[in-house]
């Protein structure tokens, strides 16, 4: 049976790369005594995949891991069993059964479903943006002006070439306050309860300076915009040298887009 696990990644664990996180979960499944499905052959391994690998240094409330089990307890019990073997920096918040391969029209992977993701990007304490952008209000004003441009062009490096890309169409939501973010997000969701995030229980680092922005960006194998690129473009707009270490990126949730109306559905609300 296919299952989808939702987890948080925070604190020092942001320094663990996604391949190591995968290895971590393979071992955690064994410690928790999960009855995993194994590949055949001399080096059998558990079948697992991530929806959208998280970059080094980023924390998250909404990470997804798909796995295959032979047998399973109820979701609540499975969450408890897995949390009992987690180390600080990983916390399981969701577990759900997915439709079996046969029921799905074709083999869907979590990765192919991903269309969009929400982020909170915060200025770390002890860093500055520049002389003209010192406090929260100045930041919000400058960021709005930055977004008001007709096009936001960046140099996107691919393996072969560097080309100019307009990232503006890839930014689908911008907000500065929690309430504002929530209201705007509700407009975009398929139904109000198609989002599993819970800002009250977020593991995101909080900073005293209060300078932060919520961003919803196109994510996935087709179009993928990283929050760091948006911030770099913002610095370019301000004409200030970009410091990638100044910002703490935190992922809030990952969504798929409904084929009919284009509305968003969080991955843990799906059956596939």
């Amino acid at each position, binding site marked *: 049976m296919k299952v989808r696990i939702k987890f948080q990644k*925070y*604190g*020092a*664990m942001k*320094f*663990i*790369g996604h391949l*190591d996180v995968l*290895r*971590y979960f*393979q*071992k*955690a*499944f*064994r*410690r928790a*005594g999960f009855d*995993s499905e*194994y590949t055949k*052959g*001399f*080096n*059998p*391994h*558990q079948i697992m995949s991530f929806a959208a690998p998280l970059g*080094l*240094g980023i924390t998250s409330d909404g990470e997804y891991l798909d796995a295959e089990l032979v047998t399973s307890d109820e979701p609540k019990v499975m969450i408890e069993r897995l949390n009992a*073997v987690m*180390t*600080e*920096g990983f916390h399981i918040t969701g577990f759900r059964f997915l439709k079996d391969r046969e029921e799905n029209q074709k083999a869907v992977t979590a990765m192919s479903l991903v269309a969009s993701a929400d982020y909170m990007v915060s200025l*770390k304490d002890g860093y500055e943006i520049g002389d003209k952008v010192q406090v929260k209000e100045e930041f919000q004003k400058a960021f709005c002006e930055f977004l008001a441009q007709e096009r936001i062009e960046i140099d996107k490096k691919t393996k072969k070439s560097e080309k100019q890309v307009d990232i503006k169409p890839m930014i689908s939501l911008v907000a500065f306050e929690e309430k504002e973010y929530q209201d705007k997000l509700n407009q975009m969701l398929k139904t109000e309860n198609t989002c599993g995030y819970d800002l009250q229980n977020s593991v995101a680092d909080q900073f005293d300076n209060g300078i932060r922005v919520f961003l919803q960006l196109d994510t996935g194998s087709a179009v993928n915009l990283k929050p760091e690129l948006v911030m770099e473009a913002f610095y370019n707009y301000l004409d200030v040298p970009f410091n990638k*270490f100044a910002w*703490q990126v935190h992922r809030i949730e990952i969504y798929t887009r409904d084929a009919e109306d284009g509305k968003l559905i969080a991955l843990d609300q799906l059956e596939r």
Partner: protein
Amino acid sequence: MRKLALSDEILLSVEKPARYIGGEVNMQVKNPKEVDIRFCMCFPDVYEIGMSHLGIQILYDILNRREDTYCERVYSPWVDLDKIMREKNIPLFALESQDPVKDFDFLGITLQYEMCYTNVLQILELSRIPIYAKDRTEEHPLVIGGGPCTYNPEPIADFFDFFYIGEGETAYNEILDTYKECKKQGKSRKEILEHMARIEGMYVPAFYDVSYNDDGTVKSIVKNNPNAPDKVKKQVEMKLSESYYPTKPLVPFIKATQDRVVLEIQRGCIRGCRFCQAGMIYRPTRERDLEYLKQCAYEMLKSTGHDEISLSSLSSSDYSHLHELVYFLIDEFGSKGVNISLPSLRIDAFSLDVMSKVQDIRKSSLTFAPEAGSQRLRDVINKGLTEEDILSGASKAFQSGWNRVKLYFMMGLPTETEEDIEGIAILADKIARKYYEIPKDQRNGKVSIVASTSFFVPKPFTPFQWARMNTSEEYLEKQHLLRNKINEQLNRKSIKYNWHEADLSELEGVFARGDRRIGKVLYDAYKSGCLYDSWSEFFDFDRWLKAFEDNGIDYRFYTCRERDEEEVFPWDFIDTGVTKKFLLREYKNAKAEKVTLNCKQSCTGCGAKVFGGGVCFIDHAGLKEVTNESTN
């Protein structure tokens, strides 16, 4: 949430930041304020290597069982972080609490190979602990050295407060109890060391004076403090099946060199190969109980979630219950996706059966370690493996579908001649010929034979401790000779030849049998930039040569000199149980090409019987059959 010693900015600028954040599965969490003793355990190499070491896991477990002690860990910062720490003046910290190492009571450093010595100095310097023990004061941790290199601690004697000679299971509790009591009574650093010197197995270098003869050899090693013993006795854990196996070992986030459960099935080796230090210093051979090991395997797989388990010992084929243990592991865990990683076993029906069960024959290879190319030289080193063993083993394996063979040899063994070296090429060729005896339609493609040679480095407490080591020029010549000999063989295209660096082996030879006078060379080499010497990309022999020259030391005095039978060795103050008399007798047997029986066949009176247990007290009369077939 744990606070990290390094900033995000630094952690995101260095390679593999997971090396420095701790927080691993099974990490011990204690409140440093609630313990009496803070102990920092160090493996002076990069994290992935240090985390693979079983000894540290054992000690971490023993020390943390004490409620009054918090044992933490530190490894060598990689060169990228080393640079940043020096530039930004960041003190070295322990992984658990992320607190500076200099605030600890103890810094215990394990010395597994000589080429980590510059890393030891790096650890001390980055921790801001004075490099020389004599410069340390009451505020600094006591720096302890342990591990196999302490069987000649003299080259690094000036940098340590004391050494623990022998196996770590026995005396740490006494050390910590004594320390705690001394602290309570407000004793000075020197007084504490005097108490330590009274504990069996502890060597406080400052309490001994070394004098030298005109020819540069050691004249005497005399204690200058009444608390120090004349001879320091090696510590041995005789009850290996009763306590202290770390059933909850640490599991790193990043892939370590040993990313698996390691089950130590026995300690010591019955074989008595004359070049092998481990085979002598870990005497007597002691086996762990089968039931105990089964229980450990179960608990460790459960607590770590590892998907692989390997057996560890010096010669696993000699473990009495090997068949039962291996089949148990396969039956119990094989179906649960756990790989059984086999140690190199004697090739026979059992090992071929096991190998075919746990490995993909097409991808795995057979390993033989004949060590020497001719039977004559194998007799000299007392390596019982015969050409017939190798050829018949290979032949059986080829018939079962294997087609890859790895061969390990040493060059520069005492009495070695050109014929012995040529023997390596001939043996490799004979193995290839065996393969092609199989009808073509039954073969599995071509055969591939990889022969590797390392350079022999004479080690203390071995029968070859008197022997002259080859110079790097001689080594290179021998390498060249073998290269040519391999190219003359019929199956040369099936034989690949790998070799080691000669300079590195020479330096290893200096530290293996060096004395206190080369401590300053080590210091100067480190100060001139030597670090991570065991990593070929960093090893800089020219810097070392300059350090020897600056100190007026001819390093070949330590390597290229046949020692006199009566010579006093820098390590003579250590009592390993195995007597110098026995070692000398073995050296003479070697030169006479005389083989010595293994411990299960007959007691050869090495001296290790004084420990009162292990193989010395087992009647092997009933095992005659077994010993006859186990001759490699």
